């Protein structure tokens, strides 16, 4: 096979996906079924995000791909190469220079603009799935706006643990209507979802696409007396000194000493280039 269609998928398929995206944008937070194709990477590796990106990219776009916030994680590298090969688009590691950003598990730290599209890879699009395994039931629950079960679950967390015991994929309510899974981003990222950029979510194996138009209201579920809290490790970044970024914890030696570094590699690098430095900034670079 030597000739690929632009961005791999044939035009019919891209049209079908674009329709699903438009429907998703028209009904924010609603999971639109789509006839997901078998991609040349496995389900679970971002086939939904890849299909959404493929249907979104134009030849003039500049693509950035991150996994765990980093451009150089193996699967981000693999997906970026896939689009370099099949779409021939420019790619970048700089958040500000990208027009389309495909991500797994993170929202970039730098604020996104109206000219950007953020594409999420989603494993389980259904926020109610672990409360009710049947799709036929959960679709009804969404249709009837029957979200009591979710609140009961959060309440049980509080009664058992004294806090809502969900650290990532923390459920949100969109424009006061649909409860939505934000994909497995840490809850630290949830408040960023009210943003200027378009957000598209693709779940390949589960055959669902959903979307958030710019500036859509996205509220993390909570209770008045137990308000939502966006948490992160209580440290500054050891490389760039940032106090406001989500951090990865890295084990340094057999004695178990640790360092904390920005999970967003572009954010960390640009801060260091601008002269910022953390505890281990000099020696580690």
């Amino acid at each position, binding site marked *: *096979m030597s000739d690929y269609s632009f961005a*791999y998928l*044939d035009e019919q398929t891209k049209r079908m996906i674009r329709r699903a995206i438009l429907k998703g944008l028209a009904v924010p937070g609603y999971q639109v*079924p*789509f*006839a*997901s*194709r*078998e*991609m040349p990477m*496995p*389900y*679970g*590796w971002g*086939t939904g995000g890849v299909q959404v990106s493929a249907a979104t990219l134009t030849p003039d776009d500049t693509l950035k791909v991150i*996994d*765990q*916030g*980093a451009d*150089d*994680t*193996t*699967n*981000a*590298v*693999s997906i970026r*190469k896939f689009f370099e090969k099949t779409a021939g688009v420019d790619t970048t590691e700089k958040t500000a220079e990208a027009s389309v950003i495909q991500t797994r*598990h*993170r929202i970039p730290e730098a604020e996104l603009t109206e000219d950007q599209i953020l594409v999420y890879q989603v*494993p389980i699009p259904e926020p109610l799935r672990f409360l009710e395994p049947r*799709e*036929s039931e959960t679709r009804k629950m969404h249709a009837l706006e029957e979200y009591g079960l979710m609140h009961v679950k959060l309440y049980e967390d509080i009664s058992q*643990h*004294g*806090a809502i*015991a969900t*650290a*990532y*994929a923390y459920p949100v309510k969109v424009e006061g209507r649909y409860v939505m899974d934000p994909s*497995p*981003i*840490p*809850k*630290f990222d949830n408040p960023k979802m009210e943003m200027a950029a378009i957000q598209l979510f693709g779940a390949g*194996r589960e*055959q*669902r696409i959903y979307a958030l138009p710019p500036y859509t209201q996205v509220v993390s579920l909570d209770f008045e007396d137990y308000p939502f809290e966006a*948490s*992160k*490790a209580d440290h500054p970044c050891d490389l760039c000194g940032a106090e406001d970024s*989500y951090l*990865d*914890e*890295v084990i*340094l030696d057999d004695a178990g000493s640790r*360092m904390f570094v920005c*999970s967003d590699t572009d954010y960390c690098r640009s801060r260091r280039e601008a002269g910022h430095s953390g505890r*281990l900034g000099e*020696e*580690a670079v």
Partner: protein
Amino acid sequence: MYVAVKGGERAIENAHAWLAEERRGDTGVAELSLAQIREQLSLAVNRVMAEGSLYDPDLAALAIKQARGDLIEAIFLVRAYRTTLPRFGSSRPVETSGMACDRRISATFKDAPGGQVLGPTFDYTHRLLDFKLAAEGDVPEAPAAEPRMETTPHITAFLQGEDIIEREPFSDDVPGDLTREPMAFPAGRAVRLQSLTRGDEGFILGMAYSTQRGYARNHAFVGELRIGVVPVEMEIPELGFCIEIGEVELTECETVNQFKGSKTVPPQFTRGYGLVFGQSERKSIAMALVDRALRWEELGEDNLGAPAQDEEFVLSHSDNIQATGFLEHIKLPHYVDFQSELELVRKLRREAAELAETLASREAAE
């Protein structure tokens, strides 16, 4: 010292190079040709075609070679390739009653028109390792009979003549296609059968076995099992008639199951149906059993809560490409999520410890 996880790109390339080397194995041993795989590992080729949903023995052989014999990986390669193929149209339904049978057996009648034809089966072999195969050698030619020229009627057709088995409702509806439409439940029997025939052989086998062991038991007789070649015809709009575009080998299994009847239907036999690409006997029998178990609702039977009766459960979990992808993806980096869990568990433990301390000091004070 901290080593940043850089160089993913080079690591990937090196891993691929190593993989290619491992796939080839010892270069002192002759390389497998696709023709060898196609001809000598034909049942593996058949499975890859069936679950890959693409009838092309050469491509399946290539996939098996590339996948180092991992059949699920080979099925995945075929599926991914299949996605890129343009679709010209749909064939006419194949007529399995016109099959040129290599094998045709019935467990329900000692003999019937068309006869019992064992064909190339493992059934009555003794499973003793044949060390002669370890050395190369010629195979003596199998005795051949005159091929039967007349068509071989379906066993169930005889039962139908007596009206003692349910009639399949005739329909000209275009069946759904789960590769073109997202799955929705209830899926309907046509899509169910498509899902089962593509489904993982091991999963379908396990589901079928569970019905035999009592989870929604419905005793199945193999009314008929036939393996052979059927022509595939397609109507060409410009011509206005059908032409034969090729032929495929199929395995078809029809089971005859008990049914006690209901208020509106007198007691009669019911059917389970299995149809699979290639010589795929185990799969087609298993498919027929699961098909029958899934039909409980239309036949007015009780829902016993058995896994094999649960359409959403069976269909959502039968695809091995979906299953293996999602299962194996947990080896991808998850450290962002794990970090957030780590923070949460530390926080909860801290709070629990503080609470215990407060309680202890209060007790001491009393």
